[in-house]
């Protein structure tokens, strides 16, 4: 194929290949579309541009921002959406808008603005991966950037107090999660059996919220009650990222939720079967992209796993 594609992005933790939503979106899309990405994780020696990550580099191009990177990959024939109808393509755009307007502000707030979370988790995590002396400046800058993004989305004048906005953005985010859960239902992915751009975006936005251990977790609690969304994230992690999971942070391993553990074990059993089928597919001639067989939950599992719908 073409020259190697390199993706610079923030690293992983808590069982995720990356804790950064935008990086995750691109990584997931690459897996879904079969794009051979070489992932370069930002660590203490990184000298890239500031806060622009994820960035895709090829021989002659540098592309930033998830939407642009995905467009670029599609032009290189790595297209996860080629089976979608025109209407589904339109729906994808609409749902991404929903995610960005209704969910993202609260996710940004949870990571970067909520004081307990920011100072005990987010800031130390990012600072430890940025070379000194940038480690002293960049996290703060990212935090301010997040705050601005939140206030901008809300369309409020800059004079408005954050507290008033906070309640609204969490309410919107919870409603958005409910909507996503309703839309997904019992399907494997948002448009049937194969993952597409929308799945990459939902996964990218949801997974960090789902997995990262925070002191203040109201939104995470809400998400964990929507079991089909949790199953969605776990399925993708297990099917597409299992082999490249670096270290599970010790904190993550200790505090794994009991239900989640049960589900993971069941999924792992299934994935042995998938691995065998996957090997067969690898031997066969190259066809973009590969269809993974649907993960079917066993009947007993299905009963105990009936998700409770929250009324919005």
């Amino acid at each position, binding site marked *: 194929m073409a020259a190697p594609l390199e993706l610079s992005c923030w690293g992983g933790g808590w069982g995720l290949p990356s804790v950064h939503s935008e990086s995750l979106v691109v990584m997931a899309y690459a897996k879904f579309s079969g794009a051979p990405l070489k992932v370069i994780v930002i660590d203490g020696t990184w000298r890239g541009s500031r806060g622009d990550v994820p960035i895709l580099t090829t021989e002659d191009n540098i592309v930033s921002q998830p939407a642009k990177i995905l467009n670029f990959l599609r032009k290189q024939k790595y297209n996860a959406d080629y089976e979608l109808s025109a209407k589904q393509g339109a729906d994808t755009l*609409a749902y991404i808008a929903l995610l960005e307007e209704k969910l993202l502000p609260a996710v940004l707030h949870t990571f970067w603005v909520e004081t307990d979370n920011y100072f005990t988790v987010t800031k130390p995590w990012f600072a430890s991966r940025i070379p000194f002396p940038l480690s002293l400046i960049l996290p703060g800058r990212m935090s301010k950037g997040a705050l601005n993004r939140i206030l901008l989305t809300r369309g409020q004048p800059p004079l408005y107090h954050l507290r008033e906005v906070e309640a609204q953005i969490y309410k919107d985010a919870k409603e958005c999660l409910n909507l996503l859960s*309703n839309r997904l239902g019992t399907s494997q992915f948002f448009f049937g059996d194969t993952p597409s751009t929308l799945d990459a975006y939902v996964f990218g936005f949801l997974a960090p919220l789902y997995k990262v251990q925070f002191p203040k977790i109201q939104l995470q609690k809400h998400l964990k009650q929507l079991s089909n969304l949790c199953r969605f994230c776990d399925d993708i992690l297990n099917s597409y990222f299992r082999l490249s999971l670096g270290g599970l942070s010790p904190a993550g391993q200790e505090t794994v939720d009991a239900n989640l553990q049960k589900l993971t074990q069941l999924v792992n059993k299934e994935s042995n079967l998938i691995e065998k089928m996957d090997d067969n597919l690898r031997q066969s001639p190259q066809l973009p992209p590969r269809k993974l067989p649907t993960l079917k939950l066993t009947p007993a599992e299905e009963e105990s796993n009936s998700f409770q719908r929250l009324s919005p």
Partner: protein
Amino acid sequence: MSLVAEAFVSQIAATEPWPENATLYQQLKGEQILLSDNAASLAVQAFLQMCNLPVKVVCRANAEYMSPSGKVPFIHVGNQVVSELGPIVQFVKAKGHSLSDGLDEVQKAEMKAYMELVNNMLLTAELYLQWCDEATVGEVLEDVDQCCQALSQRLGTQPYFFNKQPTELDALVFGHLYTILTTQLTNDELSEKVKNYSNLLAFCRRIEQHYFEDRGKGRLS
């Protein structure tokens, strides 16, 4: 409106029927009203018409200052004042009128998603065109085109976005598209983008005819 106020308004709203003298306030037409505000006002008007709730439109130069949230349009119903499409939809719902009750959960999710898309792309474009006139308009136009393409595909050959009955999504899309098509701007590129999609044009015409002309309101100026 804060969450507490919202809940309070809903409760009071439920108790009284829709009065004859409900009024919608917006800025003066022509010079004063902004593109984006005009779209918002049209959307609310279309929505109320679709719900069969009569409202009188009043233009005031100080409409923004009259509004409780500073945003226009706002409606004055009984002794309550509610601004912006979202809260107005809620308020109307509390009074027992809704356009989206017939939709299932998945359709409701879709409707909300498309409303965000419209807010995201069309509103941004309108705001951009109002305030800046420069060369980077190219990217904005591309977004508008993408949005229109999505809306056009979603609408297909149906009369409304969720087939036979209009919803708040139809009202919102109408408000924006109609405004873009009919407002005189320094450049026509924005309305040209919309005109590329014949089903969207037909959609606007249909709503204008059915909800504004036929009701004896006369053509929208």
